[in-house]
């Protein structure tokens, strides 16, 4: 049984938390995440959930407490944005290295300096190699659905890894959308009872977490860790399949939109994919064969599947909502380029940086990119590889 509601992204994710009832959550305020944990705190205060909240004094402690709580042997979640995620950076690697299934919505926001509270993806991109699984979400529905699936993915006994659920600050976190909630019982039985692995609180079988590992063993530990990520894609698909059964909504590694017969394409994450799809529809009506790929599983990156889905194109633009300063390309571009590099037939690539610090991404920008791609496809010539769009001269 489902229920259609009009809610914000934060409200939807808070509701997913309410339905899942983690044993312990840590929370520290930061815009635009704040409202999510505030809403969840009221569920705690009103006795609607069994969760124990830890209202820490920083995000560094939020994640540190989550590591302790998860190692102790129960279901754990927190949430953050921007500076908060940056402050957690050190512990992100430890949570992953300990293989702790912590779930953390990241409400994407730009990084300082200058300080800015609005959306871009530099926060989560900065954490992309920390070992957390990353699921990206176009809208409130996807944020809600991804949050529910995140617990199942994280807690899968084959992988036991932390998961970030990324969705755009304000654009999604604070805008009201029509979404479909699953009922509480369905979510609870989908997520299931928590099964601990090596719980610290099992005092009769004492374990030590966090040994010093030196040159004689570190390389092996990291190799073992790296191998774990190979198992993630199957788990993500398995969970998505089961989720489809309870929701009717289909999820995979990415969404391919009018891509199969396309000649030119755009790769873009999160909310801006919606606008882009509308513009693609307009061009399709005019007979332009353009399509889109919107990654969902960004970490681990499904190189093979994404490369396969894009290799037939003539020209491709990767739109990044984060820059890589110091001369390199945007983070999404780099992975897309890597996924295509070994094919003999592959599209010409360009990288465009858009929407930093919440700058609106308008249909005209998408249209301009499509026009440029049409030109590249026709001439076989690339003007500039990397460029900001929607920027004042």
């Amino acid at each position, binding site marked *: 049984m489902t229920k259609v509601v009009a809610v914000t992204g934060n409200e939807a994710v808070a509701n997913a938390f309410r339905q899942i009832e983690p044993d312990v959550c840590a929370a520290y305020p930061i815009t635009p995440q704040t409202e999510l944990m505030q809403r969840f705190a009221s569920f705690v205060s009103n006795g609607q959930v069994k969760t124990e909240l830890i209202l820490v004094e920083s995000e560094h402690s939020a994640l540190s407490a989550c590591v302790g709580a998860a190692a102790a042997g129960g279901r754990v979640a927190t949430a953050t944005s921007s500076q908060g995620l940056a402050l957690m950076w050190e512990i992100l690697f430890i949570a992953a290295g300990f293989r*702790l299934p912590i779930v953390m919505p990241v409400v994407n926001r730009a990084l300082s300096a200058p300080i800015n509270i609005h959306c871009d993806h530099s926060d989560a991109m900065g954490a992309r190699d920390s070992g957390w699984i990353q699921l990206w979400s176009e809208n409130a529905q996807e944020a809600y659905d991804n949050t529910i699936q995140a617990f199942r993915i994280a807690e899968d006994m084959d992988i036991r890894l932390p998961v970030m659920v990324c969705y755009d600050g304000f654009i999604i976190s604070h805008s009201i959308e029509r979404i479909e909630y699953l009922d509480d019982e369905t979510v609870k039985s989908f997520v299931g009872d928590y099964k601990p692995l*090596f719980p610290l609180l099992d005092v009769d*079988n004492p374990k*030590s977490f966090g040994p010093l590992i030196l040159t004689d*063993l570190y390389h092996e530990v990291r190799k*073992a860790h790296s191998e774990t990520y190979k198992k993630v894609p199957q788990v993500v698909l398995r969970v998505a399949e089961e989720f489809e059964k309870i929701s009717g909504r289909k999820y995979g590694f990415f969404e391919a939109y009018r891509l199969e017969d396309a000649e030119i394409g755009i790769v873009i994450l999160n909310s801006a994919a919606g606008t882009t799809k509308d513009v693609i529809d307009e061009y399709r009506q005019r007979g332009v064969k353009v399509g889109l790929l919107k990654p969902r599983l960004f970490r681990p990156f499904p190189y093979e599947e994404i490369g396969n889905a894009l290799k037939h194109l003539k020209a491709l633009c990767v739109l990044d909502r984060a820059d890589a300063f110091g001369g390199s390309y945007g983070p999404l571009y780099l992975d897309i380029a890597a996924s295509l590099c070994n094919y003999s037939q592959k599209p010409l690539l360009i990288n465009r940086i858009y929407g930093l610090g919440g700058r609106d991404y308008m249909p005209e920008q998408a249209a301009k990119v499509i026009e440029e791609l049409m030109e590249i496809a026709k001439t076989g010539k690339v003007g500039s590889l990397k460029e900001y769009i929607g920027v004042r001269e």
Partner: protein
Amino acid sequence: MIGWKDIPPGMVILEAGSAMKIKTGSWRAAYRPKWIEENCIHCLLCWLYCPDNSVKVKDGKRGEFDYDYCKGCGICAVECPGKKGNKAIVMEEEVK
């Protein structure tokens, strides 16, 4: 040393007290403690203060040193009250 396939998830150590496999007695350089039983009042201070659990105690009575682990620091000898001013522990030259 184990290969990567045998690394436990999260590198969690499942065998409590496995450090006992490391025989730190090999660290002893110049001196080793010697117990002089007749001077011992079985106060057990040496047992308590030893940083390396190298004084054996049975039924509340002091036993021999555990040279497998004793690092030869000499704390036990300094703290031993002994009997009538005669220490029950002395440090003597290490014989290897």
